[in-house]
């Protein structure tokens, strides 16, 4: 009985230790950047990875511009709130412009995600949209991303 208890205790300690060591090793071998992760996670071929990288490069200026416009619109809203208040017509117009800009950005991000997914195999593309789509801000969950 004592031997069996000791054996179970050793097994438990060994299991916990192997869990900890595996987690530590896995953490130290995490992908260097997002592109490396994409390649590994979605089993991209060299051609697919190259095409996706080109797509990202092409999208980067669009994303930068949207980002700058959002920051600008946000600052404008904050300034109008301070000077004219939330009930002013100028603030309402700026808020409407912000909503429109947000919609534009969301659509643009969505189109980019779908373009990237289209370069993957159908199964991986679906997985990509599920995984990344859920992290992207304000996409309409009623309208899930889909492959074109």
């Amino acid at each position, binding site marked *: 009985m004592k*031997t069996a208890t000791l*054996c*179970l205790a*050793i*097994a*438990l300690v*060994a*299991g*916990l*230790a*192997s*869990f*900890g*060591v*595996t*987690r530590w090793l*896995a*953490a130290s071998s*995490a*992908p260097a950047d*997002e592109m490396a*992760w*994409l390649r590994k*996670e979605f089993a991209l071929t060299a051609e697919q990875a190259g095409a996706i990288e080109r797509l*990202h490069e092409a*999208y*980067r200026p669009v*994303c*930068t511009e*949207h*980002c*700058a*416009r*959002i*920051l600008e619109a*946000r600052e404008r809203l904050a300034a109008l709130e301070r000077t004219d208040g939330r009930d002013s017509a100028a603030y309402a117009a700026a808020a409407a412009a912000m909503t429109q800009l*947000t919609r534009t*950005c*969301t659509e*643009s*991000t969505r189109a*980019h*995600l779908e373009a990237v997914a289209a370069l993957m195999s159908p199964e991986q593309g679906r997985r990509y949209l599920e*995984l*990344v789509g*859920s*992290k*992207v*801000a*304000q996409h309409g969950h009623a309208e899930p991303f889909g492959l074109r």
Partner: protein
Amino acid sequence: MSDSLSTLLRTWRHQPSDAPDFNAAVWARIRAQERAASMPLAVVRSFRWTLPLAAGFTVIASVAFGVGAGLAVSRSQTADRMAAAYARSIDPILMSGSDARLHP
């Protein structure tokens, strides 16, 4: 009538004769119980050589389970973290959040 019945009942004594095999039957039952009780122990004793094997197998199975669970948890957490980082790199709304900076 009732007086004679009462008298009869008062004087009646039952004297059963000894069962000739009573002791033997009791001992036979005791021995049978002991045999039944010692059966699992006997089985364990006859397979005693497998106990170190079973212990080794338990430890190896536990290590395998630990490695598998560690890999699964790490993979899931890495995927979640990297997907969030990737989403931040392509979504201007996330990028321009409270700690957002413009593209380098």
